[in-house]
């Protein structure tokens, strides 16, 4: 398949792996964080760690939109969905996310009308087709998906669709990276920068990472060779004593991002003073809400929601996993009490969650499997 296979070429991977191995100082341990859950998924899905020398470990970051939604917000969304005459529309990934009192799947079994959509425009269509219902789109995601939510709201406004609203949970990536860099106990050598978010925000916003923290960051695509290449370019910077923002994903990410998309976000949304992130706690200026002029489409203003802060279950260590302090399997409940069937934490739900990726794809001893797959 064109535009896919060339980025999954095993021969090129082997060549790149040899160069990576050559750049590693003997005895030195390197830690690179892939910020984005999409990268985590790629790493496990393609078995990329098989190519990395022992000294390099990849630390999974907070860039999984489903994973960072706090339980209280899930409960609020379910409370809206449970109101009479409401159709809640959201992405499939949200269906199994546990709130304080079950997930959307459970709410559906109790009678809530929750529809899985692929785009906010699908939700708008549901609103158009069901004028007697109130249709709420549960919006999640970083700057990647915020423009399409904003566009949809603008369209709803121009078409005068009054039975449509958005429960906005959009977050912004830069404050999360800052929080990671400021969190004690985590020593990182560099970053694999998020690809999709950067198509919107560009590469400039990352300049503080080398500038203030002296760490390299390489914005990367989502094919396995992209990720391997990002590791290589991080190592190259370290070897040459540089710390810069580099763009490995030039085929998609413009250095200055997408000004039109940013303008659309800015038209419809503004920063919230603070927002709770699962595991990371409250972070200032880290999330988006609808501007006053679009208040009629703001589900938070239309519906009464509990708005309560719900503490994560005590056993759940999603926070540590999201910050990269713990590897998924180091969590106390990983794989025993918390599994994809009965998730306790969000990291076990989304396909981009570090725990789900490790559980579904990487749950084996590499040494034993090397033996078994030898042909």
């Amino acid at each position, binding site marked *: *398949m064109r535009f*896919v296979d060339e980025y*999954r*070429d*095993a021969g090129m*991977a*082997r060549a790149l792996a040899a160069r990576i191995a050559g750049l590693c100082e003997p005895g030195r341990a390197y830690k690179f964080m892939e910020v984005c859950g999409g990268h985590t998924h790629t790493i*496990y*899905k*393609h*078995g*990329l*760690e*098989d*190519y990395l020398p022992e000294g390099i470990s990849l630390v999974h970051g907070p860039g999984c939109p489903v994973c960072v939604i706090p339980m209280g917000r899930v409960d609020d969304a379910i409370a809206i969905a449970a109101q009479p005459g409401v159709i809640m529309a959201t992405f*499939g990934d949200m269906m*199994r996310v546990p709130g304080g009192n079950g997930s959307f*799947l*459970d709410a*559906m*079994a*109790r009678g809530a009308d929750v529809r899985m959509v*692929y785009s906010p425009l*699908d939700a708008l269509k549901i609103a158009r087709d069901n004028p007697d219902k109130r249709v709420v789109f549960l919006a999640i995601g970083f700057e990647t998906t915020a423009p399409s939510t904003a566009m949809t709201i603008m369209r709803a406004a121009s078409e005068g669709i009054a039975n449509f609203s958005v429960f906005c949970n959009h977050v912004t990536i830069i404050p999360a990276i800052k929080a990671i860099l400021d969190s004690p106990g985590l020593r990182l050598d560099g970053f694999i920068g998020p690809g999709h978010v950067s198509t919107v925000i560009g590469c400039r916003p990352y300049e503080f990472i080398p500038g203030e923290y002296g760490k390299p960051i390489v914005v990367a695509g989502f094919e*396995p*060779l992209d990720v391997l290449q990002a590791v290589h370019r991080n190592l190259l910077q370290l070897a040459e004593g540089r710390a810069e923002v580099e763009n490995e994903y030039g085929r998609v990410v413009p250095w200055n991002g997408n000004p039109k998309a940013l303008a659309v976000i800015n038209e419809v949304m503004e920063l919230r003073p603070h927002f709770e992130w699962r595991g990371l706690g409250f972070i200032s200026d880290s999330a988006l809400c609808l501007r006053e002029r679009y208040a009629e489409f703001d589900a938070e203003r239309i519906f009464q929601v509990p708005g309560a802060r719900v503490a994560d279950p005590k056993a759940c260590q999603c926070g540590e996993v999201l910050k990269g302090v713990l590897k998924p*399997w*180091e969590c106390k409940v*990983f*794989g*025993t009490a918390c*599994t*994809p*069937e*009965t998730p306790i934490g969000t990291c076990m739900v989304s*396909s981009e969650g570090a725990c789900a990726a490790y*559980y*579904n*794809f*990487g*749950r*084996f*001893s*590499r040494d*034993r*499997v*090397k*033996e*078994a*797959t030898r042909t």
Partner: protein
Amino acid sequence: MNREELVLERIERARRSRPRLREELVTLAHGAGGKASRTLVEAVFLPSFRNPHLEPLADGAVLDLHPGTAPPDGEAPDGGAQNGGGLDGEAAHGRAPDGVSLDVGEPVGGGAGGPATTGGLAFTTDSYVVTPLFFPGGDIGDLAVNGTVNDLAMCGARPAHLSAAFIIEEGFPVEHLRRIATTMAGAARAAGVTIVTGDTKVVQRGKADGCYITTAGVGMVPSGVRLGADAVRPGDAVIVSGPIGEHGVTVMLARGRLDIEAELVSDTAPLNGLTARLLEACPDGRVRCLRDATRGGVATVLNEIARSSEVAVIITEEAVPVRPVVRGACELLGIDPLYVACEGRMVAVVAGESADAALAALRSHPLGEEAAVVGRVAEDPPGLVLLKTGFGGTRIVDVLVGDPLPRIC
């Protein structure tokens, strides 16, 4: 053993313990064919119905109709022909499929049942709730016949007779019903089976989605055939009978919500011709296990085999036949073709030394022209399905919790 390996072992133990059903209400995940479905069956139905035939939870049961255990008048239990009306024709009434004329000379192996079978009457049932009812390459009628024929074929049986029960929503066009019946007749003819009994029920508008069909089927397993997910051994070869994922993707696209256009038709087909040819080419237990890769796809089937036989199944991604259009659609949707349902493809595990003969036999049949050896069975690590990725890495292929594409069969 390092700390990670200790954790992995703890997880394996947790996975082997019987899962508890925690939900108070049934959710869609319970119908998706993955882990949640199994939990529901094991927690609710198995304890009530428990018997050696049911216990393996295989595609069908193979019954030993010894004198004394067969129903006295030769009528199949719950023969469906008592309610009158609908399809319950006089001709079918009281004449159980094949009745007492069945050749059941050879006893079933092992009193404890087990999925392995050695001759006898294969019996299976399945319900069909696909939406949309009509899709490129077939309709719900094809699935209802082929699905049950295939379940019998996977037991090693020669499918003979089917029942068909319809639950129809008030207001459903008779024209559609005619179309479905015509399809079913054609599919039955193609598979060499007859539909000998049935039932119809009509429910109020809104209480069903158009039309649901349940079929059951019986067929004879030739003596000497012993198939089972627990009969697989290290060194065996894993074969897939053709390109995977076409049915699931076709139905998904037929819903028209994705704005993806692709030239693709469902792979729905009866596999009994293919299995007969394979069993003939590789006799005497050299075919270990057959499974049609329906709900949950090839990945789910391989996991069942790895778990039941306590072996590792090692698959090479590049060897798995997937048409570019299916790969492309799956790539866009973010799903793995290994989990997408087929309705006319099977996984066959055969003795390693018989791999070439099996492949030749399958490829000699129109439905198996693109059959391929996709992997092999190893001893360690038991219970796991491993994939050597096209990229050159290794990963696990696990059972999904829910189906990525609901209501496709």
